[in-house]
């Protein structure tokens, strides 16, 4: 049988290098209705018990389809939303329990880059003024000093410092994303959460921004949580990957491990569904799995394993019992999968049958028998 993960996570947590620890975090949004009496009649279970930890200088790629809760998770890490339950520890300190005053130093260290560089910059303020904000809020500096800092910052992210007095509308999409990055970088944070930072950009510009983010990481020892739906981009920037489905982590592990040896059927299908331009990869690619149906609503997620209604390998137990996120025999340390019937190396999911039900014991035995 598979070994438990709790041990691995605990070891990670005591490591001095751990920057961020997310511990069984839950976020439910109430669905309200009624004109006079406000009634909550349902919960959107956006994030439903997610745990992981992040080391200094590491990049965690968070992937999943729309509605899987990855952006909500980003906002929980940056404390933009309060958690419903669970803990987020930054350098060992539980930030979910802090008041506003206590949060201030944390806010300097944890920053965010948003997807839409059009929507996240105030169109009526000059770039210099937007970028001065972090300094005037958090530091006591003279105006001349702030201006010097802002211009230095602009130069660092590849903007021309003379454009200090321009408005956001005078910049192109890629340049605006540089402004967003400069703003996040202003106070020398430790952790930057990038929520789809290159999704709105054209490919040629996208590559510039990815390179910039990588340079800044090396220069300032930054730790990133990188959210993107483009799986090639995520692969390029990440050290580790976490795959979310309907508010749950279904699989996490080192990047090459996830891309070459994904164990969760959802991860495998997601990776196989991506159209890829890379010709070397196209010829080497395994079979393509086309999932049926859509992502169900997080208001009323399926019982048991949330992926079971779409899973090509689902059995009876998947509908009743939720699989824990655990280490599967044969996988390297740190590769965790939440599945009763993980994909075996060489197995073709396209031919998997939901009806040919092997006994659960037999399936587990088969997993154990494979040497990876």
């Amino acid at each position, binding site marked *: 049988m598979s070994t438990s993960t709790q041990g691995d996570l605990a070891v990670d947590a005591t490591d001095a290098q751990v920057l961020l620890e997310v511990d069984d975090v839950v976020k439910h949004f109430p669905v309200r209705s009624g004109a006079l009496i406000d009634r909550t009649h349902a919960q959107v279970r956006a994030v439903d018990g997610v745990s992981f930890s992040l080391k200094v200088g590491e990049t965690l790629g968070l992937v999943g389809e729309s509605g899987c809760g990855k952006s909500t998770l980003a906002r929980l890490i940056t404390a933009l939303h309060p958690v419903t339950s669970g803990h987020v520890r930054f350098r060992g300190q539980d930030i979910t329990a802090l008041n506003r005053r206590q949060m201030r130093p944390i806010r300097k260290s944890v920053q965010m880059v948003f997807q839409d560089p059009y929507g996240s910059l105030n169109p009526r303020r000059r770039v210099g003024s937007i970028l001065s904000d972090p300094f005037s809020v958090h530091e006591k500096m003279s105006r001349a000093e702030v201006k010097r800092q802002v211009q230095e910052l602009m130069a660092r992210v590849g903007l021309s410092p003379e454009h200090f007095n321009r408005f956001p509308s005078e910049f192109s999409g890629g*340049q605006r994303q540089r402004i967003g990055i400069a703003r996040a970088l202003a106070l020398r944070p430790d952790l930057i959460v990038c929520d789809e930072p290159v999704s709105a950009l054209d*490919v040629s510009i996208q*590559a510039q921004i990815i390179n910039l983010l990588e340079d800044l990481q090396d220069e300032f020892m930054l730790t990133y949580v990188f959210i993107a739906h483009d799986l*090639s981009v995520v692969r390029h920037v990440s050290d580790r990957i976490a795959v979310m489905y309907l508010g749950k982590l279904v699989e996490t592990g080192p990047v090459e491990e996830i891309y070459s040896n994904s164990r969760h059927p959802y991860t495998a299908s*997601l990776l196989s569904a991506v159209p890829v*331009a*890379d010709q070397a990869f196209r010829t*080497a690619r395994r079979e393509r799995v086309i999932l049926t149906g*859509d*992502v169900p609503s997080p208001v009323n997620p399926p019982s048991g394993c949330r992926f079971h209604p779409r899973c090509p390998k689902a059995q009876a137990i998947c509908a009743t019992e939720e699989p824990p996120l655990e280490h599967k025999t044969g996988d390297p340390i740190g590769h965790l999968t939440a599945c009763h019937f993980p994909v075996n190396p060489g197995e073709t999911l396209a031919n998997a049958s939901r009806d040919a039900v092997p006994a659960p014991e037999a399936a587990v035995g088969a997993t154990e028998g494979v040497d990876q």
Partner: protein
Amino acid sequence: MALLDVRDLRVSFDTDDGTVYAVQGMSFSVEPGQTLGIVGESGSGKSVSTQAIMGLAPGATVTGEALLEGADLLTMSEDELRHIRGRTVSLIFQDPLTSLHPLYRVGAQIAEVMETHAQMNRKAALERAVELLGLVGIPEPKKRVRDYPHQFSGGMRQRVMIAMALALEPKLIIADEPTTALDVTVQAQILELLGRMRKDFQTAVILITHDLGIVADVADDVVIMYGGRPMERADVRAAFIEPHHPYTQGLLQSIPSYSGRMGRLLPIKGYPPSLMRQIQACPFAPRCPQAHDECLVAPPPLKPVGTSPGHLSACVLPSDAVGLPAHDAQATPAEAAVGGVEP
């Protein structure tokens, strides 16, 4: 004969800030049953080109030729164009929610196409609508035909749009970013459906997208656009393995490799050109690593390059200079090693 043959298409818009030259000499052709991908970044004119051809770019000044089975679409009256849209040519857009009327049942909307263009009566048209919904993979089509667009998910709505596009078995479907608003797993479903429909109905498809991966997946031929002009045209294999134009090469090198980490990406330097002026030179010249003096004199015409037939490139470089520079050479061994190791 080509099904659609577009020659030297130019589209401009007069705005308060001056004239926007969106398309500046676009040429392409589609054979019956062929899938042509048109790829380009935002502002390259890829959507405007097809919209202008189909008379869907109000206020635009359009010149050139667009021959659909020999008849020039650009000289047709609005009535004639309306007859062609839906009958011979169907369009599918990125956002299926804004393309469907929110207050009419989807069945009625599909049926309307057939009532208008094929003189079917309501009952026959509705029956055919049920059939079409089943064909595009919507479960329980008899029941769903009475639903409103908001009762469908994004992927299902796009299926409805495809059903509608197929209603009159057109010869050409123009799909403008049909899967951009969808999740990857749903995108795979829709692309597979489009491919199957194309095979079953022998329909030609123009697929407009910014995603090179989608083109590699489903298109036969691809046209790469930049600054309102075609830069390169080739069959998909040649375009990806033996690209000639420096812009195509730049695009391919900007995408993170899917088969493994390769050190740093090689972005194209600079930013796309302004569309507020007419192009007198190669539009890519200011960003091109191999620009010559002659690139600034006039935009180079498309010329045959490489080894595969039909491979055209609008570049002055020698016609046998195809293929990507070896990517590995860009990453030093040290860099490559760091890329593979976890910190």
